[in-house]
């Protein structure tokens, strides 16, 4: 699944526990409020973060945000992250078991 998907369809809910767990990997500009703005989006829109890491990004002035999140609306979450000014890219995948 990639972050540019703008299909209107919501991800169908599945009975299996792990099918709604996703790992999001985002590259962000390294600015003072970037992490707070990204994390605040999860809180405000009701996405529960299971795990989070904040590490150096692909370039010296970027950071990498990795979040494991359980949601049945990962496409929407990706689009909501993408519209943040400091978010450079977002990719979502189902985490390995």
């Amino acid at each position, binding site marked *: 699944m990639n972050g540019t998907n703008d299909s209107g369809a919501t991800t169908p809910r599945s009975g299996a526990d792990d099918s709604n767990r996703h790992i999001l990997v985002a590259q962000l500009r390294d600015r003072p409020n970037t992490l707070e703005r990204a994390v605040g989006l999860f809180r405000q829109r009701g996405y529960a973060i299971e795990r989070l890491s904040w590490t150096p990004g692909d370039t010296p002035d970027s950071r990498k945000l990795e979040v494991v999140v359980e949601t049945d609306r990962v496409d929407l979450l990706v689009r909501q992250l993408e519209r943040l*000014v400091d978010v450079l890219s977002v990719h979502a995948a189902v985490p390995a078991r």
Partner: protein
Amino acid sequence: MSETRTGAQILCEALIREGAEVVFGIPGGAIMPFYHALPEFQHQLRHVLCRHEQGAGHAAEGYARASGKVGICVATSGPGATNLVTPIADAWMDSTPLIAITGQVSSGVLGTDAFQETDVIGITTPITKHNRLVTRAEEIIDAVREAFLIATTGRPGPVVLDITKDAQQARIVPDWDAPYPTIKAAPTTIDPERIRAAARLLAEAERPLILAGNGVIWSGATDALRRFAEKTGIPVITTLHGKGAFPEDHPLALGMPGMHGWVHVNKAIQECDVLLNIGSRFDDRVTGKASTFAPNAKIIHVDIDRAEIGKIIRVDVPIVGDARAALEELHAATPARDCSGWLARIRALQERHQPRQQYMKRPATAQLMPADVYDAFNRIALDRGPHRVVTDVGQHQMWAAQLIEWRNPRSHITSGGAGTMGFSLPAALGAAIAHPNETIWVICGDGGFQMTNQELATIQQEGITNIKVAIINNGYLGMVRQWQELFENRRYSGTPLSGPDFARLAEAYGVRGMRVEHVDDVDAAITEAWDTDGCVVIDFRVEREVNVFPMVPQGKSIGEMLTEAPEPALAV
């Protein structure tokens, strides 16, 4: 050797270079260097001293919504900045390009709970497109340029610049040749396959509808919308913020959908087989219970903000892009067609559910009904020059949306998504400055007016003469009272509302005040207000317990509308 300038001087100049003409604000300790610099630029950058920062923020919003330009408000740190939170949130919900500049304590004491220090970045993060703490004068040019870019690119919205006092005070040589900041571009090309898919649906539909929202107005797509609708014959619905996107005297105009939309409009949505939504975000006041909205329709959604697509309503053909560009491409791709049978069906529904009928049931006495005011306004406005209407939030706002015939973009200005009572008077101040040669009407309730009426002093001090205020005064927080009447067994808890004599209050501010209590006096009052060279406040003492109908109870499908109260709505 170039001349050194203070950060505050650079801030003023940077704003002017980006096109700013006016700022609305109130000074205070942490923003004093900016105010010290302002007089040097007074001929290029007008300052409007408001009486409360909330008023300054709404004035900047009103300026933006009336002009299409960026609105700018200024406040000091701490309480000055927190008073801007409501207008910033309002601009966020309604996609208004707003730049809020807040002073901040000096960088050396940041984080020490210094006097009037508040974490403005932390507070405003969830309600801004972007915000930025500026601690060095060297950053100011870049920060201002970036703020304008962000506020106006793609879906418009608010940006906060929190600038420390020492950054405003520092003297540097400004580098106006520095490269412009870059931000992610808004979508510029529209997927032609999606346009073809949409055009195919629209060409083959038996019962197509267009739903036009705020995005049509911000993208300047009103002409493109009219041409597309006329080519295809598809009827057009306009949301609250889409009022003026399509002329309501047009044969294809249907009116407003949603909680207080007309019955025939909501029924048309429930019956349509293709719905083209352009620049509206499927707000819950439009959709009612989302899972039951337009159950028979394929949905085409055009939005500049990708994150709005599929958020509320499942979409069959998503089109990410500018409303005008999308409409022009759809116009080229969709063959001319005829929808007259479908339109006739909707008009028949309209005949059966006469929308204005409810409001025409007036008592035989001279008792003033709210609809009398709108009726007179409509008649008198026909013969008048350019004018706009700013409404507040509540019953009077819905009556205005329903009963005034809206024709032009940016002629209807209101607080929609946030539903901010107190919006209208200060927003009208901004609109009046943007359009000094037009008449700006405020229509508000007695509750909302009392939240920000201190801005009458601002209007008076600024010498503004083109604002006319109509208070639909029913002595209640009327919309809440209506809900209490209909759904809470008439337990009027916290809704009966007293107020001052508004006409005398206006006079105390140096503004002409009038009071109208009888239906026979309405026309003369509105005419006189329009003819008065100066601002006027009219206190319309209306029947107290009139309701807004139709109404979709919250959480219900828009197919389930109340058209009258279970018991007689009028207290006799």
